[in-house]
């Protein structure tokens, strides 16, 4: 009798594990319900694992969408994960999500990116600044239109951005610093939330000083000047926007370019600064 029970238990467990592994791998293996379908480049199948990892590590919004989708497609199809694998998938998912116009697809990509981030941490990647940064970005993007979810995740996002800063603030040219600063600028203020506009301004001054080559550091600093100091800081706002527009005029930032420009124009409009007052044609 006992033997039969034990046998049943074991066979049930075995069936469960087989089913779990099949479903589990199915989830990662090129799509499951809710995961964004991909259209990789035609030569994707010929690319090696090493190729896609290298390409993915350097990925940015300037790169062709189908090449980025190829990276994610190939990484989804692997059976074996490493921290590097998870990090690249997390980053590429974010770059794709960030450029995506369709909100549902964007959410699916960002959620996938956050899942890759969790996989990376579980494999020991908690000391990887890039992984922490892109995980936080994906998580924020995935929950941004659900206030409750967003509020629930805000401390997790803050924690990961702070980790990324401690490990390497130079990721994405001060990315973790400027994003944490914007979180402090926009989140509900203390004690209801982590919002702290003064700290936001301090962080953005630091980011634009040390990583002055990234337009967003200047655009975000202008935004912080406007929200913390107001129109008294118009001269500084104009200076930061001028700097950002000059940077964007010399380099192509891909799909982000227009959105950043719009952000800059919004700040000028809110501050009541005419674009002609910037002193040059942006």
């Amino acid at each position, binding site marked *: 009798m006992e033997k039969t029970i034990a046998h049943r238990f074991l066979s049930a467990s075995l069936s469960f594990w087989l089913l779990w592994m099949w479903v589990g791998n199915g989830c990662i293996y090129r799509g499951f319900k809710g995961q964004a379908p991909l259209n990789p480049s035609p030569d994707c199948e010929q690319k090696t694992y090493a190729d896609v990892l290298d390409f993915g590590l350097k990925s940015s*919004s300037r790169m062709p969408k189908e090449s980025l989708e190829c990276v994610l497609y190939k990484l989804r199809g692997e059976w074996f994960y490493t921290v590097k694998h998870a990090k690249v998938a997390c980053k590429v998912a974010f770059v794709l999500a*960030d*450029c995506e116009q369709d909100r549902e697809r964007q959410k699916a990509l960002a959620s996938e990116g956050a899942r890759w981030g969790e996989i990376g941490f579980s494999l020991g990647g908690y000391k990887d600044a890039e992984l922490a940064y892109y995980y936080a*970005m994906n998580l*924020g*993007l995935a*929950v*941004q*239109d*659900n*206030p*409750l979810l*967003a*509020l*629930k*995740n*805000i401390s997790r*996002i803050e924690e990961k951005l702070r980790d990324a800063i401690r490990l390497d603030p130079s990721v*994405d040219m001060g*990315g973790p610093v*400027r*994003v*944490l600063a*914007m*979180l402090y*600028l*926009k*989140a*509900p*203020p*203390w*004690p*209801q*939330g982590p*919002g*702290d*506009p*003064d700290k936001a301004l301090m962080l953005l001054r630091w980011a634009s000083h040390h990583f002055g080559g990234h337009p*967003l550091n200047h*655009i*975000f600093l202008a*935004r912080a000047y406007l929200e913390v100091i107001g129109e008294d800081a118009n001269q500084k706002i104009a200076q930061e926007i001028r700097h950002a527009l000059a940077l964007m005029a010399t380099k192509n930032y891909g*799909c*982000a370019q*227009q*959105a*950043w420009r719009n*952000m800059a124009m919004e700040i000028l409009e809110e501050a009541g600064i005419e674009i002609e007052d910037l002193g040059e044609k942006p």
Partner: protein
Amino acid sequence: MKTQASLVFVACVSLSLHGFADPAKVLVCYTASSVDAKQAKAAIEQMISTLEELGGFPKNTFAPVFTESLEACTELAHKEKPHFIIPSLGFYLKMKDDLGLIPVSQPRIKQKDFDIYRIVVKKGTYKDLEALKGKVLSGTILDDVAFLERIVFRSKIEPSKHFVLKPSKVVLRTLRQLEKGKVDAVILTSQQFEALQGLDLAKEIEVIFESEKVPLPGVFAVRSTNAAETEKFREALSKFCSSQNGKGFCELFGIDGFYPIGEAYYKAVEALWKKP
């Protein structure tokens, strides 16, 4: 990175305003600190949609109107003709008769239905309110001087004459200014005071004034709102914190629940307000 700006504030943007004709307005006036109106509105929309479900109201019966300015609150209360208002206590006391505000529900936070206002200073600098005469008092509740005078100080002092008032929307900034000696004292709500205990600064400050208990502001119906609608709204609020969607909100803000209250609830504080 084009969405960096929008994704990080995470307190969240929902731009999907419901398309409906003339929904009844719920006016929320949050004047105690600075919040992003767009984000706050999104959160309130979600709360209202939950209340609609719980109260059995058709979807999009209500639409939120949000402001963080006391002046705008008065203006919107007249212009938008809301059915319900969630204001500060000072606004309720000032506008009760004008708008015919009827108490509906009140939140209980950490088992308390009252607030206590405290004035803190750097240890050893000032020993009481008298010593603070002519000194700079900062805080997030200084916009409404009449409330401060009549309810917090029970008409014992005139704050605008007794102190140099320096209102702020950012309580952390006022505390840092206190630390640096740029302001002499800061007035805090219970929630702010309790949170302060988690900061290093707590060791360097002391309380020199503690107000009597002041009831927490609640949810009010406007005179013209029909009684059945008010009752349904009250019931929905009572169920809110135990509902699946509302539970998360209440946990996040430390609200135990919303409890029905009647007109008698604010009588004592109304008497203080009217005292000559």
